[in-house]
């Protein structure tokens, strides 16, 4: 499974409060959540995200709250891949369970926003800034959840 797009680049320790402030919880449609995606970083960030299908971050992306709107708001905004040097447990689980590919890449170099990024989840590599980096491939169980459209798709099957 291969995904590519233009990257929006964030720093380290961007937690769930910054990704999606709690006051916007209760909105159930990802397309409507998208208006608040990244808004904890400042009011200009939802617009900055537009047109970027890849979110790139540093260490410990998505720490803190269990709120999955931190993930689904990204999906609603058109993000199709998240790459970070490291993920919090809950953010990573929420990505997989909502069908958003998330790849950890400890050696990810510094990238500029707008850089094209391509990743292959099953083969385990990321291509960005002219270099191809090997990353741990997603285990087949998790890839299966993503390819099936998320965890809840199994209940509808």
């Amino acid at each position: 499974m291969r995904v590519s797009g233009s990257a929006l680049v964030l720093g380290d320790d961007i937690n769930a409060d910054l990704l999606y402030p709690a006051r916007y919880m209760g909105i159930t449609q990802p397309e409507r959540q998208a208006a608040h995606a990244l808004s904890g970083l400042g009011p200009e960030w939802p617009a900055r995200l537009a047109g970027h299908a890849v979110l790139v971050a540093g260490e410990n992306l998505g720490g803190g709250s269990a709120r999955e709107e931190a993930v689904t708001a990204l999906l609603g905004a058109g993000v199709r891949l998240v790459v970070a040097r490291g993920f919090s447990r809950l953010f990573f689980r929420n990505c997989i369970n909502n069908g958003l590919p998330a790849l950890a890449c400890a050696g990810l170099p510094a990238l500029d926003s707008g850089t094209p990024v391509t990743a292959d989840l099953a083969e385990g590599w990321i291509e960005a800034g002219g270099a191809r980096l090997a990353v741990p491939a997603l285990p087949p169980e998790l890839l299966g959840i993503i390819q099936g459209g998320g965890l809840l798709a199994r209940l509808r099957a």
Partner: protein
Amino acid sequence: MTTLSEQILSRAAGRPLRAGDMAEVTPDHCFVPDDTIALLMHHLERAGVTRLPHPERLGVFYDHFAPAETVEHATAHAEGRRFLKRHGVSRLFEVGEGISHQICVEQGLVRPGELAFNADSHTTTLGAIGCFGTGLGATETAYVWATGRIWLRVPTTIRVVLEGALAPGVAAKDICLALLRLVGPAGATYRALEFQGGAVAALSVAQRMTLCNMAVELGAKAALVPPDSAWPRVSPDAVYEREIVLDLSALEPMAALPGRVAPIADFGAPEIHQAFLGTCTNGRIEDLREAAAILAGRRLAPGVRMLVTPASRAVQSAALREGVLATLLEAGCVLTPPGCGACAGLHMGLLGDGERCVSSGSRNAPGRMGSRAADILLASPATVAASAVAGRLTDPRLLMESPA
């Protein structure tokens, strides 16, 4: 022999598990707070789930925005009540009853050796009584409600050895902040913490809850204090990924801003405008007593407001009976209904531009409690009270040494 996490998750999976294994587990409980009830109902409806197989394992807590502040929140509460009634889920903890984790422990909803999920990251708190508690997102919570099961990975364990005794004026919160400084906000990601060592026996359940609560601020999946029960027990040959030894007698009162954890003296006594005593981290009767001991016979500094939010109705009742509430109110504090209160920034006690709050909570991201242009300093209940009296971030030992 195995870690506490391996023992508990093996039971929940019905087969022996070791760290690193993926397994399908059957939790004893799966809870959800009010801030996720609307999304949970939405997911279940979209997935076509019409029957919940184990309603007795489920439970809902109205704690994050109770009483409701907006029509949307009130509607989430109202629709949740109807949904739970329709599905035979009897464990609904209503507006004013308090925070899920506090209620789970004080009412004995969870037991040592059990596996409990909750769509709330601070579910690690339950490890204080030897229950493996961890947070889930709304989607996987819906999956557990619909099926009774879910996949998870068995974590490796960091053994945290606590030695020595806390000095007067130094609290469990200061242990948490010292650990945060030591290992960082991702130092325990995907791991479980086990608190061991000679100091643990002397820690109250309240202190143990604070320790396990803030384990998630280090990234931990769960945190466990070995329970007094027959099982699960610490095994002498359990395999730990890493060991951290902390001498409690060397600790001093600490505070934290985003990305900065340090002894109070290092912050240079910044002015504060709001003091907040409450939360699943530090809203228990022991915490209110510590604050009252500082505030007795004193008044809040001019221009400072202090919100007191008991973690539960039982905490509020105890504080009323003991005279703790009278002390806090006479000092000028504002009492709010039990629950998450100002910590989640959802229904009261917001911060304005340029303000600074000293909070007994566990999170301080910009904007969490209101304005993005406000600072949240995390500290112990005694530090919160001392700072409210002084109007500046203040080491509580200064007020303990000089009675008013």
